[in-house]
């Protein structure tokens, strides 16, 4: 078994987040901070936030969590080059223990207004993911990991994501973030036991666990859809399985709680957030750990090569994003012919959910 994982928070830049986390900081309970550095690219960082991030960085307790790199964008453009240049500057400025990104692709003209959509396990798509991950690894020069995605169009997406991530991170001797609320969403939306999904992931590669809450969205197709909105308490089902999952993840180093900054406005909401933090802290304290062999990172060296691109996939990613944004009916999405995507097997509720999420985040 590994040593006790460190408990921390995903830091938010909103001032409203600070009163909610003060009790934990005053108790010296926040052992590590995670920071999505690219959400504030081109925006001034508030002084109070910079001071806190610098403190955790100086103590080797800061984790980097990218949002907008997009591991499966089929084209390589200036956008990715610029993102990596900014990443290098951020890594010169602060010391991050490791860096993570998300599974999926974003494909819009204005990149910061996209949402990641899942991709099927296909040799060409895997090759693109590996290429992007190698470039990220070369730029970062610290361990790099990938987080599982909540959104899935079909049960096939759910079943194959573990294997896909396993093959993907193998390329760089990378690791996984296991987001348990993302898996909870899939379990609810496809009526599968949450533990069954957890067990298809290569748990020995999990270095970090994410915990959060979410919300229910009404569906005209009869069942409600669970969404990962990071705006409510951690579901009890997740807290129930957490001790078992911690025990299965032999190389786990960090447990991070995520909550959006602007969703903690009332005293009751702040109390729920604090209660969640304390419950997770107790679960970690009460888990059994003994010192075992520490897995060391074996950095791979890569020869320079041109970025791998696939124009057919790029066209399909663009067509799919547009199709969903335009709000075409479920049947017309299902009838659309693709080479890589298989909309004919997608769930009606999930097509509608994708349309709503894309409209929310991507105004074109």
């Amino acid at each position, binding site marked *: 078994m590994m040593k006790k994982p460190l408990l921390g928070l995903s830091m938010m830049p909103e001032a409203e987040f600070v009163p909610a986390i003060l009790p934990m900081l005053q108790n010296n309970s926040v052992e590590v901070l995670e920071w999505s550095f690219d959400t504030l690219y081109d925006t001034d960082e508030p002084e109070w936030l910079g001071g806190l991030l610098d403190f955790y960085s100086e103590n080797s307790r800061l984790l980097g969590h990218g949002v907008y790199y997009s591991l499966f964008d089929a084209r390589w453009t200036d956008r990715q080059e610029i993102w990596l240049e900014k990443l290098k500057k951020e890594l010169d400025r602060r010391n991050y223990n490791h860096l993570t990104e998300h599974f999926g692709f974003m494909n819009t003209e204005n990149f910061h207004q996209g949402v990641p959509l899942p991709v099927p396990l296909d040799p060409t798509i895997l090759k693109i993911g590996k290429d992007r991950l190698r470039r990220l690894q070369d730029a970062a020069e610290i361990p790099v990991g990938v987080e599982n*995605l909540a959104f899935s169009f079909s049960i096939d997406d759910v079943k194959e994501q573990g294997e896909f991530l396993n093959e993907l991170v193998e390329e760089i001797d990378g690791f996984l973030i296991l987001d348990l609320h993302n898996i909870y969403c899939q379990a609810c939306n496809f009526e599968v036991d949450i533990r069954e999904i957890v067990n298809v992931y290569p748990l020995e590669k999990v270095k970090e666990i994410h915990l959060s809450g979410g919300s229910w969205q009404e569906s005209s197709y009869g069942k409600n859809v669970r969404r990962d909105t990071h*705006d409510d308490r951690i579901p009890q089902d997740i807290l129930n399985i957490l001790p078992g999952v911690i025990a299965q993840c032999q190389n786990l180093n960090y447990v991070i709680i995520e909550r959006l900054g602007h969703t903690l406005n009332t005293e009751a909401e702040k109390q729920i957030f604090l209660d969640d933090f304390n419950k997770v802290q107790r679960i970690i304290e009460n888990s059994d750990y003994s010192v075992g062999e520490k897995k060391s990172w074996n950095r791979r060296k890569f020869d320079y090569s041109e970025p791998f691109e696939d124009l057919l996939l790029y066209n399909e990613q663009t067509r799919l994003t547009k199709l969903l944004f335009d709000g075409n009916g479920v049947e017309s999405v299902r009838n659309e012919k693709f080479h890589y995507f298989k909309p004919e097997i997608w769930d009606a509720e999930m097509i509608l959910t994708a349309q709503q*999420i894309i409209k929310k985040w991507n*105004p074109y």
Partner: protein
Amino acid sequence: MKVPALVMASLLAVSVSAQTTKPVKKVKKPVSKIKKAESPKPIKTAETKFVPKKDSVFRGGGGCPACGMG
């Protein structure tokens, strides 16, 4: 992790400011007995459309799309 006093002081300050700048309930305006002169109608101009810069950060909706179901 014990956060240094200086960093904590800055967090306390922003915390107080975040809690005191919440919108307060609107106070009813006293009814004015003097009839206001009608203001001239605004002249219609072409609508200005917001064109976001390429790769600009748009945080208007609040939240984070990263996990794909936000």
